């Protein structure tokens, strides 16, 4: 059977067939519309419309206990920058993002380079590596409580056994930086598998003879990593950074479980939740949502512009 000829033949027959003048008076084809309608309804009704609501109502006073809604211009935004807990949550979120993006990207590159060449057991290692990505962030918070805990935690036990500290230490709630660092490590645990896979996919495209050529020129090991691996992995690294930026700027589950409402480490998303669903001040919540969305998109675009380079072999 000549599958190569048949389609061409069929196309000629249908366009020139009887009763169907070329390109005109076709019956309306409703099937594709029927197929995409559910998707379109969901996207418009439960994504674009709500996003529009956030965009508009950020400039309104919307308080469940204080109707009706009234236009107040930038008042929600002004109010937000006068509120100390919200301002400090912005600083916290910036810390989360910086720590999370740097750690998950560096670890992702290290793990991807480890997995770059085939070796026995690599498939098993990838299966293990992916685990933290697949688990709920909330439960990961509970898992890591067992490591950070000041009374029974694994880290304290190991540090004391090794005589690195004399007595059990408080990590969560010790001070701003340490608290945020230990909470963010839990999120990094969840983010790193995807970063690794993204960088690894980029590394797999690098032709092996590039490394051979470099070796002949006397550039191997570290030099080859800096001159070949890193630049050619840029598309993968850029996507990895973007996913980490989006996740860390919107961090909620890990600080919520590990730290509760304590303002030492509260993120902007936590404040958004508290403001909207405990104080029932939706207008302020909308303004915070809009702010974090705009910042997320701007930072993501900046990363793409700075880090992404398309690579051709």
């Amino acid at each position, binding site marked *: 059977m000549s599958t190569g000829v048949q389609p061409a033949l069929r196309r000629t027959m249908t366009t020139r067939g009887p009763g169907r003048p070329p390109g005109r008076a076709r019956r309306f084809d409703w099937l594709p519309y029927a*197929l995409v309608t559910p998707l379109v309804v969901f996207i418009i009704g439960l994504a674009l419309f709500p996003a529009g609501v956030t965009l508009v109502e950020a400039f309104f006073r919307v308080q469940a206990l204080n109707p009706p809604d009234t236009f107040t211009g930038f008042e929600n935004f002004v109010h937000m920058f006068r509120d100390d807990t919200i301002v400090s949550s912005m600083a916290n979120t910036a810390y989360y993002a910086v720590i999370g993006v740097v750690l998950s990207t560096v670890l992702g590159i290290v793990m991807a380079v480890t997995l770059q060449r085939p070796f026995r057991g690599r498939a098993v*290692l990838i299966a293990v590596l992916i685990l933290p990505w*697949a688990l*709920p962030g909330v439960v990961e918070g509970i898992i890591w409580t067992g490591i950070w805990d000041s009374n029974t935690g694994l880290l304290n036990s190991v540090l004391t056994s090794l005589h690195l500290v004399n007595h059990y230490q408080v990590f969560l709630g010790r001070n701003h930086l340490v608290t945020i660092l230990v909470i963010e490590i839990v999120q990094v645990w969840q983010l790193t598998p995807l970063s690794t896979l993204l960088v690894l996919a980029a590394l797999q495209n690098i032709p092996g003879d590039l490394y051979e050529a470099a070796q002949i020129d006397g550039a191997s090991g570290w030099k080859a990593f800096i001159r070949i691996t890193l630049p050619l992995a840029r598309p993968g690294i850029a996507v990895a950074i973007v996913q980490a930026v989006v996740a860390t700027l919107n961090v909620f589950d890990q600080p919520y479980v590990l730290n509760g409402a304590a303002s030492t480490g509260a993120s902007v998303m936590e404040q*958004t939740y508290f403001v909207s669903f405990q104080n029932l001040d939706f207008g302020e*919540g909308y303004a915070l949502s809009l702010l*974090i969305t705009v910042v997320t998109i701007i930072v993501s675009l900046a990363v793409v512009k700075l880090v992404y380079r398309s690579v051709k072999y």
Partner: protein
Amino acid sequence: MARRFPLRPLGVAFILLWTLVPLYWVLSTSLQTDAQVSAKPSNYIPPTPTLSNYLTLLRGSGDIATSIRQSTVNICVECAASTVITVVLAALAAYAFARMRFRGRRVLFYSALATMALPAYSTLIPLYRIMSTLGLVNTYTGIVLVYVSGFLPLATWILYNYMSSLPMALEEAGQVDGASRMQVLWHVVLPLARPGIVSTAIITFLSAWAQFLFPLVLSSDLSTEPLTVAIAALAGRHTVPYSLMSAAGVVAIAVPAVIAVVLNRYIVNGLLAGSVK
């Protein structure tokens, strides 16, 4: 010429320790009594492994056990329903986008994809208010609708890429034989797209299982609270024994962990298809 990474053994050891130590630790804690968990230094291996924490969750009549059991049922219902609906709707739309030409095709396709660029939580408050207006707070329907709307764009994108990569020849042969386009979809395209469909289903299911903030807002009692929300509520009380919390945690990670290990090939393929644009 061997060009292997000289520090590979170190890297391998790091990946294994980094991933497995926390998982081992929660499992080990769940197999100890609360007194054993409080030992200093910790018991690195459970001295007398016991399933008593799991039996408490399985058979106990206290409110902790009841809430874990009911919320496990809830999370299974919500994940299964949203996975099935997402995959079916995404497959239909992906087929239309990949194989049919129609007015508005590009606009619809790219606006669906564009919603992936929005952080999920940007629509949290409006979605809550919509569901509350429709009387769908504290219902499975409300939660599933929100999940499906969140997962559809990525699912459609993965399946669109997969279907576009399939050879046209078989479908055309089917059409020559007189099959309708829906018959071609059902008998030719879907069977060929099976690996893509499995990837999409797994990624959707795992994302649904991991949800926390949306169900936290959309459900306020045990009628619909998924396991993640129930566990966080128990952790917030600070009175639940840590060994029992750990057992609940192991229950909550068992399903996604098994899926991730057994079906990881599909996950890796699906993720890479979905995120490298």
